[in-house]
């Protein structure tokens, strides 16, 4: 068998890698959307499909891991995950990509629940195993979008998936030793125990808060790239504020009170941050930082508190870990399924409003009437060329008139027009952020009920 330390690192990497996959493609979605010539609603299924299959497969996968042995299950799971990742990277159409994502989620669900069963033997304590497992998952999920954004811009969206294969295989190598040991000793069947009921309220709260957090991340990325025209790397840098704040939250968390208080405080912070994103007073990146700080600290508090509550003292770990994975990913999928139609309807309506208000600005401006018509044509071409993305209208105003008076009027018009487009883009995200904030607040209900039930 492998020495505990390398094996621990491999197990942590495996969990981080799989759970990063629920969010790693977020920053690549705009590129996938354009390259595979699909719709916003269609491309969200690249995200939804993975989370939905993870939600459905996590508990059965945990049972499978216990039946065939966690070492063997983890090795098979990681191999499937790696193979499906290659298929994702080679997919030339949306249907193939979504199908490969489903297979990837199946392999991931088996690997991640099996790892939870392997960890206590590796670290020597069930509580420590839970902490490491939860931390590895949270780190992967938090770093996923930034890594995905950097890879998308520097290489391609396909590289996000292709790069996962060697990492998954490398993480699987130390697990093979455990699998071989299981095959030699046949220890598995004897350890099957009755599983006990999952912690319903903690898992329900996990699902609700995960829906709110997924919405926050997904909507913020779309706002930054599609609305405010940031590059994937630019957006990756901006959304890194959230995991950095989560690290801060993870540090203050354990000292700040019991699990119930941390869960409630975290849900309040996540909702407050989402409320701030719903009320952005200007299209400025800096204004997203305070809300991200609240969401980041909040998610670290609430996710760790609820996962701990759902797992500690419950056996077997893989099954209850499976329930938490299932709850979190069901929440993410449900959040995206509920919010995507709201969001796409809003963005379509707001795009019309943006175009109308932009045209009104042009018509009411004081620039030369013939120049107005020419500008209208150029702006129309830019709007048509961007396929739903809010354009930068600057190039439509080039070349600027030579006459100083005309030039200054055209510059005023350009700024007013861009302001209208920015307003429309930002405003279109407000209802969805507001709805996500409400979801976060609703998570307080199961948290409060859990207190009443168990005190």
């Amino acid at each position, binding site marked *: 068998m492998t020495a505990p330390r390398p094996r621990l690192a491999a197990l942590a990497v495996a969990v981080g890698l799989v759970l990063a996959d629920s969010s790693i493609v977020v920053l690549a979605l705009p590129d996938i959307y354009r390259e595979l010539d699909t719709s916003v609603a269609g491309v969200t299924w690249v995200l939804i499909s993975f989370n939905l299959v993870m939600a459905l497969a996590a508990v059965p996968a945990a049972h499978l891991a216990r039946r065939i042995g966690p070492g063997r299950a983890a090795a098979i799971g990681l191999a499937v995950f790696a193979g499906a990742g290659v298929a994702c990277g080679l997919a030339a159409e949306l249907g193939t990509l979504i199908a490969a994502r489903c297979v990837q989620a199946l392999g991931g669900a088996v690997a991640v629940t099996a790892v939870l069963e392997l960890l206590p033997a590796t670290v020597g304590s069930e509580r420590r195993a839970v902490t490491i497992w939860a931390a590895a998952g949270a780190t992967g999920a938090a770093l996923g979008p930034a890594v995905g954004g950097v890879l998308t811009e520097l290489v391609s969206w396909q590289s996000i998936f292709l790069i996962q294969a060697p990492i998954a295989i490398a993480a699987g190598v130390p697990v093979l030793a455990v699998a071989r040991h299981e095959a030699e000793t046949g220890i598995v069947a004897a350890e099957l125990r009755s599983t006990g009921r999952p912690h319903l309220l903690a898992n329900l709260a996990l699902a609700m808060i995960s829906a709110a957090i997924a919405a926050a991340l997904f909507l913020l990325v779309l706002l930054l790239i599609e609305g405010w025209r940031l590059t994937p790397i630019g957006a990756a840098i901006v959304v890194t504020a959230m995991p950095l704040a989560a690290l801060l939250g993870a540090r203050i968390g354990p000292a700040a009170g019991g699990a*119930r208080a941390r869960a409630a*405080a975290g849900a309040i912070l996540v909702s407050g941050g989402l409320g701030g994103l719903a009320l952005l007073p200007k299209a400025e990146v800096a204004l997203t930082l305070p809300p991200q700080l609240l969401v980041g600290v909040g998610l670290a508090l609430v996710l760790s508190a609820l996962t701990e509550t759902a797992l500690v003292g419950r056996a077997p770990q893989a099954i209850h870990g499976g329930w938490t994975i299932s709850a979190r990913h069901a929440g993410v999928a449900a959040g995206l399924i509920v919010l995507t139609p709201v969001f796409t309807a809003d963005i379509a309506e707001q795009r019309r409003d*943006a175009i109308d208000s932009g045209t009104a600005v042009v018509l009411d401006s004081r620039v030369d009437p013939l120049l107005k018509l020419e500008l209208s044509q150029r702006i129309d071409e830019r709007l048509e060329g961007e396929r739903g993305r809010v354009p930068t209208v600057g190039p439509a105003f080039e070349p600027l008139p030579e006459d100083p008076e005309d030039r200054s009027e055209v510059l005023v018009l350009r700024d007013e027009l861009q302001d209208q487009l920015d307003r429309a883009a930002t405003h279109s995200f407000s209802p969805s952020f507001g709805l996500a904030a409400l979801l976060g607040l609703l998570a307080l209900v199961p948290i409060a009920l859990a207190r009443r039930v168990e005190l």
Partner: protein
Amino acid sequence: MNAERGGGAGKLLILASAAASLTLVLAYLAAGGSSYSPVTVKDPCEPREWRDPGSLEEIAEQFSLSALDGAACELGVTRETLARALATPQSRERFTRRYGIDDAELGRAIRAGLMRAIDDAEAAGALPPFLAEPLRETVRQIPPEQAIELARNARSLLDDLQGFLDPAQDLLERFFR
């Protein structure tokens, strides 16, 4: 859930979280977060105030905007939608397809828009009554296909509007003096 550790610290954490969340939301509200939205376009059927037309060129521009309002009102679309529709032959085709409006209907609407523009110009004091009536008569006599031609080429629409006022230029300039 698990037994509560440090009840006082927990309450403090919840209060601090609520205070931070409320502060952020109130600060963004105070900074105009609830009103950061694009301007809403006006109903083209409502009268629109003429902007201090000081020269013939500006009168022509206001006239064309009023004509757009009138035609848009007739067709049940916004002035902005119609303006974009008239920008290029392709956009006009998209417009007629999307709204199910044929050329004859568009021609009639443009004629109604021109009548509205004459009314607005007269009401704004930019067009003397003794010129308004002959202009109305001229518009009435524009054949629908000519109105469609105006619609086919947005640039010619404005040129023609200006040309439309040109014969009266001497009279208008005398009036302004």
